[in-house]
């Protein structure tokens, strides 16, 4: 088992390097720091001195890959690639373009993100599995048919409308919760409730339909037929056999997004003004703060790769038929 995990981690390393190189190329080679500086400072009347100063303030005034002026290892380390990209490997994000410490910001902002994503995930799993089981129980009846149609209709509505509609109906018309904002401690609940609810409703369609297919596939298998044949009531068949085996693909599907919960949801956070990592990223995109966007791209990729690793491990735990070879 440990061998397997080590091998998987070693396998993840080249991917991390690849991600790093891609972000580096995207941010420094496609457009040089000069271009970015010129854009940030305005187009027409920009002096070369202003550009040089902008670059010096942010540490972009070094050569990109190879510093011929430095001595010894400085030839490699005194470069933009080393300072801004290689250091990402050890999670040294450096400073944002506006001068704040990105690492500190991230550690502060991940908690509000988690406050939204964790309840959404747990409540969502419970709700979708329940709905999917109901549909599977009533399979091939009108309840099932119309349930699936409803799912398709709900899937076809943009998530923006769920958020806008939720804010309008629950926040503005009914005055149940504040429309947006965030607070710490127990007060946070009233701010968190609406985003969680909206997120839940927003993905009912696709998730329920997907889980229903998983359960239906499971129901066609031999062991379920055996269970029915020996006279087990349909409810027990569902709970004891179908649900348990269906949970394997569902849970392993969940494991891959577990690490991504830190990042939070971009749109939801921004709409509800929740100071999490999602809105942090969106603000950075709107302010064109390249340092933050670069860090978040890298962090997101690391978390995704970590999620893949967890998935592989959880498969082997959940399904004893898979051998670690």
């Amino acid at each position: 088992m440990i061998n397997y995990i080590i091998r998987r981690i070693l396998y993840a390393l080249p991917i991390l390097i690849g991600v790093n190189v891609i972000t580096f190329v995207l941010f420094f080679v496609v457009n040089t720091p000069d271009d970015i500086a010129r854009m940030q400072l305005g187009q027409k009347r920009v002096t070369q001195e202003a550009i040089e100063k902008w670059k010096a303030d942010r540490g972009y005034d070094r050569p990109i890959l190879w510093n011929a002026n430095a001595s010894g290892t400085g030839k490699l380390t005194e470069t933009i690639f080393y300072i801004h990209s290689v250091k990402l490997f050890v999670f040294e994000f450096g400073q944002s373009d506006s001068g704040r410490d990105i690492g500190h910001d991230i550690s502060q902002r991940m908690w509000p993100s988690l406050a939204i994503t964790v309840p959404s995930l747990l409540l969502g799993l419970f709700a979708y599995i329940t709905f999917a089981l109901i549909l599977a129980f009533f399979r091939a009846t009108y309840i099932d048919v119309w349930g699936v149609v409803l799912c398709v209709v709900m899937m076809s509505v943009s998530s923006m409308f769920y958020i806008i509609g939720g804010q309008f109906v629950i926040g503005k018309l009914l005055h149940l919760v504040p429309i947006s904002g965030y607070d710490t401690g127990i007060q946070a609940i009233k701010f968190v409730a609406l985003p969680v609810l909206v997120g839940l409703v927003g993905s009912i369609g696709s998730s329920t339909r997907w889980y229903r297919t998983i359960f239906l596939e499971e129901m066609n298998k031999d062991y379920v037929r055996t269970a029915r044949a020996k006279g087990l009531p349909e409810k027990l068949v569902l709970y004891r056999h179908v649900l348990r085996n269906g949970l394997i693909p569902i849970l392993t599907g969940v494991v891959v997004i577990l690490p991504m919960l830190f990042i939070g949801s971009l749109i939801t956070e921004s709409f509800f003004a929740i100071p999490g990592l999602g809105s942090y990223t969106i603000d950075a995109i709107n302010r064109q703060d390249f340092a933050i966007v670069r860090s978040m791209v890298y962090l997101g990729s690391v978390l995704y790769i970590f999620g893949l690793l967890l998935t592989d491990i959880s498969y082997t735990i959940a399904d004893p038929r898979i051998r670690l070879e």
Partner: protein
Amino acid sequence: MPVLFITDILIFVLLGMVILFAWYTTRHEHLRAPWRQVAANPLAMVAVVILGFYIIIGLLDSIHFHPRLSWEEEKQVEYSTEIHSLLDVLTEKMRTQIETSYSAPFATHSFAKEVIVLPDGSEIRAYPRLAFAGRHLDDVNDVGSDILIKSISGGLVGLFIWALLCGLSIFWLARHRQHTLNETLGSIIQRQGRIPWHIILITLGLCIVTLSTLFYLSSFYHVLGTDKVGQDVFYQSLKSVRTGLLIGTLTTLVMLPFAIALGIMAGYFRGWVDDVIQYLYTTLNSIPGVLLIAAAILMLEVYMTNHAVDFTSVEQRADMRLLFLCMILGIMSWTGLCRLLRGEALKLREIDYVQASQAFGVGHLTIMLRHVLPNVMHIVMISIVIDFSGLVLAEAVLAYINIGVDPSMASWGNMINSARLELARDPVVWWSLAAAFIFMLGLVLPANLFADAVRDAFDPRIRTMQ
């Protein structure tokens, strides 16, 4: 003088490919069988009819030209610098009748009170009459009956067109089946045959009557109201159709060659080729999609502002950005299909006919093209139709983060984005959002239903279950 945007060229290339593919399919029985199953599905046929209308609108909007300036006809012909499309010409009145600000659907008066100077010099605060909508009315109180009369006459025109189309299609069917017209009509009414013609014709009728009513009314009223700068919302929604369709289809067009070539190669050659390709798609896949798009669009903006000379018109800039967005979305979305194709190719390469060809010394390329590719086409087909609706929906989200299509371009995402803050007004300005909602649902829901039907027909696993 015609103008060709790059996206226009691509959309017609795509259209040509679809027509070629359709022609090829009709000549091969094994390819026709699953499509027949799709055609027998009433929901899917309703979806096809509705999608057809969207595609027609999108195509009309893809033929661009510089309109000729009419007063120059005598001398040398001159062209306006504006770029119009065929759709713009058809919706001339909607496009040009611009009010000053918000107005509700079918309103004759402005949404906000203004100071009006009466003929006798006194000033009152009231809702002013709109500059264009309802101008033809002498008495504003007649608006209800006027709308009714106009919608009936618009609807009648629609009914007439529908009757014409019905006649044509029945005539064609009769020729095709070599029946008399009466027999054909009878079989449609009695719902005989596999293809639900009665449902197709009814849907067609509903669509045509609705559209012609709305079109006719829209030259007298703003049927879906106007937005903040007084533009007709119905016109904007129609213009957005092209954007939505382009995002959904061009993205697929961009990614297909990569996905198919790399996926099949990985599965067929295995070994180091497989390792490299797997590494490539895992790496790309692990970068969060929205962030990659954001980074790429930021870089495009930097490039465009530093090379402003290369883009002569706003439309070209917007077009470039749309194309770039499609490419980025394509680069991100080929990985899923590639993985599926790799798995399938791994299975196929062990099958007897592939082994036999290898033993006969047939080249790798020929084997992949002749034996592997046709046998993975069902996966490609399913994934194209399933991805489409997701991409249309994604456009709205990207517009919100300002990394979607150019803000000057009509798109549902931009409509939602500019209208979402207006819900805070009192009374609420709801029509822009409602229009975007209806038009998006009208495209995405049929697309989803059609995708389901295609998947059911093409997926061999589901086919054997039935």
